[in-house]
């Protein structure tokens, strides 16, 4: 029997492809030199130690070679990337002060609405500088600090100095070194001992200028027995020049604390998303990652969890959707260092229209991690014959007292399922979208409602060619 193919329209991106005129007041020279780093540091009024840190990172950046594995990033020419772009506006204390043009873009992406409804704080990053930032008063009264990273460097210098790039040291890889040299913007969150932030904090990152890189730094510290849900969303308008995103996220989950870190990334299709995310989890702590990767041209994203204390846990839920022109290499790493640590990794990947999706992971159990448990489940769906899907997990176990399980499946939507749904009067496109939504349901249900809706809309846009 000749199998029926569903024609799948490519994503409708108009909402995300609004491009504003470039009104930036300051841009560095192209390429990366010591002078540029000093320039950035001067502009930011860095303390001396930060300038030293940047320069040392630059040295490492020159020395470390590009990775030999993963997607092809040869079209990335660092000399073409303007590393720092400062938008034409000062830090704004409230929404009304944000420049009209920038505000309009954020309005279209629905940021203030999100805040008005349920989110307790919004830090929106426009290019490299945070232009709008607010935390509900009661939170700051309780000692929760939520601020942009530049402010944190000055106002909470001791904390930043203690934690900044200790978890992701610049020597880790070339793009971590680059980040250490040129980082700009980002969020700083400090949750004091025993404090439960019961409404999610949200930050929205966005790139505007063509050929600009974005290197925001996120540092979250959850003290003993505290809890937090942090949401990071990413979107950018499309340009012809390659854009680079090499952000860095460092999460410290102290004894008994819980942190959920959710991301829906929908970068434009010319973005190189080479982001590094890492969490250090102490005794009885829990890190929950929820990760949706929809956009970008190339992504390398593997949030890693270092389970450092006894009974520390990691839950990872991820979905990756690769379409035409996309090579999305995503996954997770877990390092188990203490007894009775556990990890649960659950991912779904979808490839269509010539897109390539790779699930890559590493689970390392060190000799001291007696009683460690890790379960990995990844499923991949291929929607047509032009696309690719690869699964590359590694398990490295150095003690006997473990339970390690890994399962992966790869395949297509069954004709029977489509036939069943169409025989019930559902159009074929919609039937396919329904099945894909069911496939990613484990991720959707881990997200707050409005993000689950956004993710479903992204899937509908991919599959049906409209907002459905």
């Amino acid at each position, binding site marked *: 029997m000749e199998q029926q193919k569903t024609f799948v329209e490519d994503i409708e991106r108009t909402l995300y492809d609004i491009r504003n005129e470039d009104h930036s007041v300051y841009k560095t020279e192209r390429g990366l030199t010591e002078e540029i780093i000093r320039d950035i540091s001067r502009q930011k009024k860095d303390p001396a130690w930060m300038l030293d840190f940047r320069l040392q990172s630059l040295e490492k950046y020159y020395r470390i070679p590009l990775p*030999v594995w993963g997607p092809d990033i040869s079209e990335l020419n660092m000399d073409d990337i303007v590393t720092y772009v400062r938008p034409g506006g000062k830090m704004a204390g409230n929404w009304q002060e944000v420049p009209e043009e920038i505000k309009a873009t954020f309005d279209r992406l629905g940021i203030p609405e999100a805040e008005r409804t349920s989110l307790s704080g919004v830090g929106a990053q426009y290019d490299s500088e945070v232009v709008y930032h607010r935390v509900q008063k009661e939170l700051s009264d309780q000692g929760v600090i939520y601020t942009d990273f530049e402010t944190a460097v000055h106002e909470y210098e001791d904390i930043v100095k203690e934690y900044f790039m200790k978890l992701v040291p610049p020597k880790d890889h070339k793009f971590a070194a680059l980040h250490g040299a040129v980082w700009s913007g980002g969020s700083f969150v400090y949750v004091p001992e025993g404090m439960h932030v019961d409404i999610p904090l949200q930050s929205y990152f966005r790139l505007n200028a063509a050929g600009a890189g974005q290197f925001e730094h996120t540092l979250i510290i959850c003290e003993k027995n505290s809890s937090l849900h942090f949401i990071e969303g990413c979107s950018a308008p499309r340009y012809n020049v390659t854009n680079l995103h090499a952000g860095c996220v460092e999460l410290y989950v102290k004894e008994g604390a819980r942190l959920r870190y959710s991301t829906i990334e929908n970068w434009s299709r010319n973005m190189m998303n080479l982001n590094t995310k890492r969490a250090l989890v102490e005794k009885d702590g829990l890190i929950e990652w929820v990760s949706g990767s929809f956009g970008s041209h190339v992504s390398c994203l593997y949030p890693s969890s270092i389970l450092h204390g006894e009974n520390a846990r990691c839950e990872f839920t991820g979905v990756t959707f690769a379409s035409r022109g996309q090579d999305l290499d995503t996954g997770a790493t877990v390092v188990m260092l203490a007894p009775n640590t556990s990890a649960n990794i659950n991912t779904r990947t979808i490839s269509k229209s010539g897109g390539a999706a790779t699930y890559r992971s590493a689970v390392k159990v060190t000799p001291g991690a007696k009683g460690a448990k890790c379960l990995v489940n990844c499923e991949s769906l*291929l929607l047509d014959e032009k696309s*690719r899907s*690869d699964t590359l*997990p590694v398990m490295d176990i150095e003690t*006997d007292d473990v339970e390690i399980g890994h399962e992966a499946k790869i395949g297509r939507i069954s004709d029977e399922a489509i036939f069943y749904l169409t025989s019930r009067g559902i159009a074929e496109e919609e039937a396919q979208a329904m099945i894909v939504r069911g496939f990613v349901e484990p991720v959707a249900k881990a997200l707050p409602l409005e993000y689950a809706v956004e993710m479903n809309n992204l899937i509908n846009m991919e599959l049906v060619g409209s907002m459905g």
Partner: protein
Amino acid sequence: MEKELFSTLPVPTWRWLGVNEVYLPEELQTLPTPVRKIQIDVPAGQHVTQVIANRTEQRTEITAHVAEGGTLQMVQLQLLPPDKAGTCNVEVTAEKDAQVYYTTAEIGASRVLAQVKIDLAGDGSKADMAALYFGDGTRSIDLNYVITQTGKKTEANMQVRGALQDSAAKIFRGTLDFKAGSKDSTGREKEEVVLLNEGIRNRSVPLMLSAEEDVNGQHAVSAGRLDNSRLFYLMSRGLDEKEARKLVVGALFATVLERVPDAELREKISREVEERIEHGQR
């Protein structure tokens, strides 16, 4: 002297895991070691059985071609002395409707490198692979198995069973590679490894690569120590712990060993594994 590459992971990953490639053991490189070459041709429609119990050859290369509708049943048992390193490289091509039954056991040698590549080139071809390894003492085992599915309606099955004790170290790389055009193909891969004490190192790398939508692929790995409740049950029936371990490992290996056509060889391997669980490495 430049190190000689023996095998590589079909798609590389992070270097810190040390699984991307393996080089020839030094002792085989410094002392020129003769390579025993075996060529097997299975004519169309014929059935060939080949059993190799290797006790002496440190380097073996086997190439096999299975013509249309042919069947190759190959058993490759590595029983080298415990102070010798060994390598074995096997490449099999299966034409239309050909079947390959490949069984292997890695029992001996101080350090062993084994690579098996089966190309299901023809439509309707099939590979059924079963492997076992037993690592103890300071033994090091490095395996790289790749089944490539090029033809339509191909079928791959890779079952690997292993046990590690003392300070043995093992890397298993198992790849199912669905090439574009391998429509209506299926692939299954499973590794089960029992870890008998602390101090071992087990690395498992199951890869599944697909450039074809119309396939059904699955892989799984499970690693852990002997189930305490099962051990307790056996011991409550009067077995001591070592006896119980022997029984559990024996059961794990049974499905692979029963594919060895020679009863004497089967018995020899079972006995050796039992003795090494009982007394440690000879």
